């Protein structure tokens, strides 16, 4: 691991320009919890590290005039999990950030870094996708907005170009009276990554479902979401039969779930079914049927 240069730009413009000059050899360093591990494992060999540590523009949590939440890329998972605005308005994200890794990791890892790493077995991405999050990216050509669901391309692969930096995460406001839940199912120890992570947002009017946004993480290379299936819940009264049926159809729709140390492909599909069912039961206040 030989890093020749460690750069600490003070502005995003400066950072983009430094990155542009070293695009083949440089990596952007956020919290470092993933990047340094990859370097130690000799999977990447950057000779220049560009730290975002001193760029104030990448920090902080705020809401804009239309009620959208803006989270600076360098905000740590602990900061997101503990933020009052997030906890009140987007509790799903707070839950997912609080579920990731362990306290030491959450104090170091950033939400921007978490998205840019695109680790399939992480908790926040599924919550962000369920919440229709977008991200802002800055590059030599200026800045662009991208839906997070379009950003994740595959295992550790994103739409971020080598000369671009992810600067913030933007989440639309949720309608009033929505409820949400993040279920992290761990098949091994209590500090393991999720075998399956289900992020669900639901709203009901008079017992009839008016909104359903459901994403599943850790089950495939990128968070999975099926808007067409979600639509079928709208207008339905959420009974045990409806929830169970939906969970079954959703799990069946997954294209080749992953097979790894946390579970085989068929086990993951079944765990997706079980935990979507449990998420819907919990949000609809249904009694367990086992």
């Amino acid at each position, binding site marked *: *691991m*030989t890093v020749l240069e460690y750069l600490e730009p003070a502005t995003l413009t400066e950072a983009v320009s430094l990155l542009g000059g070293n695009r083949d050899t440089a990596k952007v360093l956020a919290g470092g919890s993933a990047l340094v591990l990859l370097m130690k494992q000799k999977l990447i060999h950057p000779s220049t590290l560009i730290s975002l540590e001193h760029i104030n523009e990448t920090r902080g949590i705020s809401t804009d005039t239309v009620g959208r939440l803006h989270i600076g890329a360098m905000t740590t998972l602990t900061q997101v999990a503990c933020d009052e605005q997030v906890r009140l308005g987007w509790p799903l994200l707070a839950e997912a950030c609080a579920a990731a890794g*362990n306290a030491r990791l959450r104090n170091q890892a950033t939400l921007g870094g978490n998205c840019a790493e695109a680790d399939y077995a992480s908790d926040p991405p599924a919550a962000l996708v369920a919440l229709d999050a977008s991200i802002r990216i800055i590059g030599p050509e200026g800045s662009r907005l991208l839906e997070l669901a379009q950003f994740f391309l595959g295992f550790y692969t994103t739409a971020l170009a080598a000369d671009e930096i992810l600067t913030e995460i933007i989440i639309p406001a949720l309608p009033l009276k929505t409820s949400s839940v993040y279920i992290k*199912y761990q*098949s*091994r*120890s*209590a*500090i*393991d*990554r999720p*075998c399956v992570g289900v992020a669900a947002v639901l709203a009901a009017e008079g017992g009839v479902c008016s909104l359903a946004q459901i994403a599943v993480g850790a089950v495939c290379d990128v968070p999975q979401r099926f808007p067409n299936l979600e639509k079928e819940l709208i207008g339905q009264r959420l009974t045990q039969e409806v929830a169970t049926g939906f969970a079954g159809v959703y799990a069946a729709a997954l294209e080749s779930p992953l097979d790894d*140390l946390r*579970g*085989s492909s068929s*086990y993951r599909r*079944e*765990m997706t079914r*079980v935990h979507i069912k449990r998420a819907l039961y919990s949000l609809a206040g249904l009694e*367990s049927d*086992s």
Partner: protein
Amino acid sequence: MKAVGQSIPLLDARARVDGSLPYILNLTLPGMLYGKVLRSIHPHARLARIDTTAAARATGVRAVVTGQELANDKRFNHLYGIGHNDQPILAVDKVRYVGEAIALVAAETSEQAEAALDLIEVGYESLPSIDNELEAIAPGAPVVHDGVNLNIIRHFKLRHGDIEAAFAASDHVIEELYSSPAAQQVTLEPHVTLAQFTDGQLTVHTASQSPYGVRRVLAEIFNLSPEQVRVIVGPLGGGYGAKGHVRLEPLAAVLAWKTNGRPVKITATRADEFVIVTKHAASMRIKSGIMDDGTITAREVTSWWNTGAYADAGYMLTKGGLLRSIGPYRIPVVSADAYQVYTNRPPAAAFRGAMAAQGEWTFESHMDSLAHAISMDPRELRRRNLLQDGDAWATGEMMHDVHYEECLDEVLRLLDREPQAEPARGPIRRGRGMAVMMKNSQSPSRSEARVTLQNNGQATVFTSSVEMGQGAHTAMAQIAADQLGLPVEAVQVVGPDTDKTPFDQVTSGSRTTFMMGNAVRLAAQAVANEMRQLGSRHFEVKPEEVSLADGSLHTPGGQSLDFGALLQWAGLPAIEMLREFKTESSLDENSQGVACSHWHQGAGACEIEVDIETGKLAVTRFAGASWAGKVVNPAHARSQDQGNIIYGLGPTLFEEMIFDGGQVINANLADYLIPSIRDVPPVLMTSCLESKSPDSEMYGIGEMTLPCVAPAVANALFDALGVRIHSMPLTAERILSAIREKENELKLGKEKNSP
């Protein structure tokens, strides 16, 4: 007040917490070089070519060593082992596991050594490899060592009675196959060794549980007398058997031999740890005959121990594997075989509760299968068959000081004492299980201790027992203090350093409190006797009238004098005594005779919750008991009992080294998980049982509550759902498959029965 029986804090507690404890990991010496190991990426291959030219020329490199060079050098014994010398220090013509050491580099910095490794070119010619112990013994399997037929390097057997006749006379004969995988000991401190040659003397600072074992092997390798090798061991950051035998020491020493007196340090990375040593994977076939009334009439056990590519410690441990696969029961006819099997895997050795965990998993799971077969309560089946004082065991030896039933009663009492849990709801089912633990102590075995009482009134215990957080040194100070009539604070413990501290076999197998404890007791007693003699001259009374307490001698007439003053009066700087304690064993080729001086005894019982939709199992309550005879330090004993249960939960629920093409694919602590504090059962209860006699022996309790964890949990799962898992670990997916299988069987059964 006696020190033994008091919860005195660890002597090094503060240093362990504030970071000032002198771990070898943190040791640097002037002029020190950094050693790195090039390891094989093939499980089985001919080494066609090794080119170190570029590495030798690289910046900062001071030495490069290959196996060919060592094999050609007549000054070395290039092959070494623990009882069987089959392992080259560095691979010569062939590699036998992924991770085997091929070449070594020493350089000025760790980075330079690392960079030089990348410059070594190795040409491999791949050979067929073998991974599983049962496949390795099949005819036609790849042969790991030429001439070792069916890869069986060692076979131990036990024959006690006519097994076929006994099965024929039994009401039921039940046979099962159990397996458990390789696992990692995961010490927080990795293996680390610092070696230096000066004037033909080899000095090694190493994180080892076996200073004298390391010295013996290094002396053999370099053709030195044992006295020319000095092994210094610091406090360890965990051992668990991983450091029980020679590991990095030959590699560091070979590099040091080439660096003109400069010391060389090798520190294992976490990935290295996974290929340095593992727990034995094992497969076991167990077959028992049982009568309708629950009397076990016969037992046959065959165990195959996956020892990896070299005989290593398994060469000796497989005998323990044989004795630890039978169980603490009164079974009149027993036949057992244990095979040590070569495979293309990293060498296997001891893992906390060595070879007992695999055996317990088998025979204690099997006990509940027997109980189920005759519709008897598992507790009742055990009660009818557990050994009692005076019973003969499978070796034919008469068992004494037997407390298995007492241990079992205690854990069930602890579990029953807790208020009933709320009724299980939704997909959660609840069950309870139990298991009894039996392990032979290491015999023959020998420990020496030297105790010095100085004329400043302070005492020193010189011991080669290793302090690795288990409290061995604190226990020795307590034992010495009581014999000498000193407060514990006046006793210092020194060692291990083979130039200063006398012989000890090894710090493992729960032997230290008993073996070294007795050696320290005898040495301290001898010092105390000398003091009484001196006191009798000084006070002009009989020696037996002199008592030792609070650092002073006292007479019945009320005279007293402190130790320092007496020694000064006698003109002695100190009194020093060396004593030895040893045990014997005498097993014949059929393992008949006396296996050991005493047997380790314990039990565990638990309550579990299992989610029938996911298969996820949670241990909600666990009670463990160990037989101590006499407890030296209640707080430390409790920590050991609790620690063993937590440690044992890992291999029970999820710890497993996964191999793909001979390579460990989860060689890091994100993919290979150990229990976290959040995995600890919410209710964890332990009991360290003592004899009613004040003169009881002090037995080690370092492993007693560990081997029972897996079978107790599996038995609780069977209690909850009626599913029997035969392979560790009890993963959620494995449990869910078993649940589904049972559901399908029931469905098929119904269909068959329906008209």
